[in-house]
């Protein structure tokens, strides 16, 4: 029995798990065996194995820490979302209308009056929404804050 035969027999024994691999002929089996021997990492030394396990342990523990932190992180995220979202739903304070760039530079007594009117309108829109919608004439009307801006623009032009 030649060396090649002996090698291929041992390869066949190792590879006899699947029908498909038995279809690889002996010459190919030797080549595959050689590839397997030449192309692979060196086995871990005990120190490397310990380093691998301790690295894995550290990953598991940091994952567990994150698991316990998750509810806290979720609460912070919800809070942050609320802080970002609230200004969009909060009706602007009437004084904020004055921040719109189209506001005339010189404030006249009429504009002070307008400010007071805006206050009243704002209060009405909050406490008496039915009155607001009746005055606006249905669903086609602008919301209160937009109307305040529109009235400022129309009066200044």
């Amino acid at each position, binding site marked *: 029995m030649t060396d090649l035969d002996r090698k291929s027999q041992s390869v066949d024994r190792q590879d006899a798990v699947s029908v498909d691999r038995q279809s690889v002929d002996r010459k190919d089996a030797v080549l595959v065996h050689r590839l397997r021997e030449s*192309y692979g990492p060196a086995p871990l030394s005990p120190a490397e194995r310990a380093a*691998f396990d301790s690295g894995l342990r550290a*990953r598991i523990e940091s994952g567990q820490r994150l698991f316990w932190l998750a509810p806290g992180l979720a609460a912070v995220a919800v809070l942050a979302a609320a802080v970002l979202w609230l200004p969009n739903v909060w009706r602007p304070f009437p004084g904020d209308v004055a921040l719109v760039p189209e506001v005339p530079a010189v404030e006249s007594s009429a504009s002070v009056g307008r400010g007071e009117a805006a206050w009243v309108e704002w209060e009405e829109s909050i406490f008496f929404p039915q009155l607001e919608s009746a005055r606006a004439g249905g669903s086609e009307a602008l919301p209160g804050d937009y109307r305040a801006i529109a009235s400022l623009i129309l009066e200044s032009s």
Partner: protein
Amino acid sequence: MEGAAVLGSSPAIQDRDREREREREREERFEAFLASHRERARSLAWRLLGGDAAAAEDVAQEAFLRAWRSLDRFRGEARLETWFYRILVRQAHNHRRWRAVRERFAGPSPDEPPGGEPADRGDPALRRRIEAALAGLSRGQREAFVLVHLEGFTVREAAEATGDVPRER
């Protein structure tokens, strides 16, 4: 008074003991799984990643971490094993993809020698030739070759690991 305290606390103590016992069994199961699959997982990752030892270790550890998290979902060792190697193959594929993207935009990283570590076994020149040949294969071909011929998976196991299980007729 004391008797009442003992009676009141004993179910809680029993629960804690049971919990500890479950945790210990889980640890033991994972230790056994790690011991029997550490070398094979590392070797498979190394071969799928073209001899990058650091990346192979990273991918293998990540797969073990996922196995640890999902240990309770799997009663039988065989199902856990199948699932584990599927995760590992996918992780290795994702790593290759990211590495390709990184190298495309930033050039090859100096900490990832393409020829592998000097401690790896075999003739370095032959290893480079094998590596180049494997790099020329498609993803599916490379995974199938490595799993079946280099790692000794059966065709069925390899198909399960790559997620290409043929449908039963």
